[in-house]
């Protein structure tokens, strides 16, 4: 095989072109919506990819409206609480699954797999009715509960993959050194599992942050409405102006945290997603 410099240069060029294609494919829609959010109402409809006139008015508008700020608070609060609970419960279950021997383990793994594949829309109607009766409809807990449920399989799979990578001998060693099961977990396993917990937390947060179906069916007012839903209801309200600019600005605002996560934790997100889903 010829491996001269010419071939490698050509290979680099080919890979480079492919890379550029991927990056463009991935980023164009994001940049487009960012571009729209900076356009003035006059140039909004010019169809130009790069704004001719730049403005921050759209951002001012959304942060002035109670509607968006409330939704943002709801989104952050609900996603954080659901993430915290799902990761804690998921870590407990994943530890038991990967480390302990007890009857019913396989059943739990099977059930959580089923839930991961479950058509969420099938739950929408009974949950709608049940939550109405229990007074959970249009409240934070009303959204947090289904989020935890659907995030748990993800959390359990990812975390048990992480737990399995921790050498089993370490826990045995801790036991031989005089630790109880609990001490072995707290002092040896948990510190080692921290990166896994963190990765899982990011994935679960993205899931909760993203959800639209539950948010739109289980809320009706600003009390618990999250940003994705608020966006779809941004129809200008009493304002006469076109809401496009505002929607785009809001979209950019809720996209920023995700982009930051992806930038900083790319490697962890990849390992979390793949370990959870493939090695399961």
């Amino acid at each position, binding site marked *: 095989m010829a491996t001269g410099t010419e071939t490698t240069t050509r290979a680099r060029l080919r890979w480079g072109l492919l890379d550029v294609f991927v990056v463009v494919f991935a980023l164009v829609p994001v940049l487009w919506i960012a571009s729209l959010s900076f356009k003035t109402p006059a140039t909004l409809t010019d169809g130009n990819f790069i704004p001719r006139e730049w403005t921050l008015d759209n951002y001012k508008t959304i942060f002035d409206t109670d509607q968006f700020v409330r939704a943002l608070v709801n989104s952050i609060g609900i996603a954080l609480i659901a993430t915290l609970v799902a990761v804690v419960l998921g870590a407990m279950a994943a530890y038991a699954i990967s480390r302990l021997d007890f009857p019913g383990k396989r059943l739990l793994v099977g059930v959580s797999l089923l839930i991961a594949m479950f058509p969420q829309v099938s739950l929408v109607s009974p949950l709608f009715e049940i939550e109405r009766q229990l007074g959970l409809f249009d409240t934070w807990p009303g959204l947090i509960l289904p989020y935890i449920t659907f995030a748990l399989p993800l959390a359990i799979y990812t975390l048990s993959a992480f737990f399995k990578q921790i*050498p089993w*001998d370490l826990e045995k060693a*801790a*036991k*031989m*050194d005089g630790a109880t099961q609990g*001490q072995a977990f707290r002092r*040896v396993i948990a510190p080692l599992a921290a990166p896994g917990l963190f990765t899982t937390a990011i994935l679960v947060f993205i899931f909760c942050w993203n959800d639209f179906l539950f948010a739109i069916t289980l809320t009706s007012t600003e009390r618990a409405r999250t940003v994705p839903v608020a966006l779809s209801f941004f129809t200008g309200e009493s304002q006469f102006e076109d809401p496009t600019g505002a929607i785009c600005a809001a979209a950019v605002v809720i996209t920023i945290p995700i982009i930051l996560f992806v930038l900083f934790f790319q490697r962890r997100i990849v390992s979390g997603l793949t370990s959870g889903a493939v090695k399961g």
Partner: protein
Amino acid sequence: MADIVLDKVNKKFPDGTVAVQDVDLEIADGEFVILVGPSGCGKSTTLNMIAGLEDISSGELRIGGQRVNDKAPRDRDIAMVFQSYALYPNMTVRENMAFPLRLAKLDKETINQKVDEAAKVLELTPLLDRKPANLSGGQRQRVAMGRAIVRQPKAFLMDEPLSNLDAKLRVQMRTVVSRLQKQLGTTTVYVTHDQTEAMTLGDRVVIMRGGAVQQVGPPQELYDHPRNLFVAGFIGSPSMNFLHAAVQDGGLRTALGDVPLGDRVRRELEAADAPRELILGIRPEHFEDAELVDEESRRRGLEFEAPVEIVESMGSDKYVYFTVEGEKASAAELEELAADAGAADFSGAGSNLVTRLSAESPVAEGQSRRVWFNLEKIHLFDPANGRNLTLHEGRAAGALAD
């Protein structure tokens, strides 16, 4: 410090496999005992049961006279060194070694003092503030040992502690382990699959196969007086040669010529149910270049001639490989040993003979050479059950014994 007693200990897994079968073993206070055998022979399971990391299915385990079957590892007061070392990666060397003491709720001063002491013994003092990731394999191994000795437990359990080291370091650490054990005088159970470690380290060696104990005794005794074919083949490197032998007219017909039999063995073979085919075993060092044998020895042995295949000169002596014609010795034990060595389905035609000859022997590859072997040192095994027929009251007596 304490003695450890295993009384008819069994381990049966939920899927029905029996990993350990009726193991009886009494380990005296301060003794260094090696559990050895091919992989899967139940040695590690036995160790884990002593540690409390595996449940005992039936039988009794006593440490210091006290039944501990149902005690958690932390209540047994024994320390363990793992093959993987199992150092806590998030803790420094000092924290690793202090961990068992902190769990025992000792005060800070005592902990520091004990850790420093142990670190000095193992020459770890300059490494105390490093993390395991920044240590070499040998250093990690020493930290693992340090963590075990620091709390002065009743007993040490070691699960192949040296097998992750390279060959040279392993030899070095072997003496460290040996010296440390003598110094501390702590009862030690050491698991290994390496027969060299087993021979060099322990006061006594326990050879296991298929979950059952095959023979227990001091290393030299196992080497000289193996109770059965498996022990004979497992102990020794290069291992014992095994040849097919047919019983004929009060003697044995083998590829090395007709071997005469002494009265005792002959009597045994005259029994109605005695085997007609045997396996003859002979260790490499019991061969010698026929030219170099004096008259006195010559009478105690037999000579044969065979083509030389390979000569490995070790300096002090020569390993010479001969090809001999004739049927191969076959038995379940031999197949198992070959499988463990990874050579189950790979061997040339005919039998190979490994001999250790004096360095002075002018033997050369390609030629044919006359070789003498000592009849007093050969073993005869029953292929059906592996029993050593030359063994009399625990001592091997060769083929000629009366």
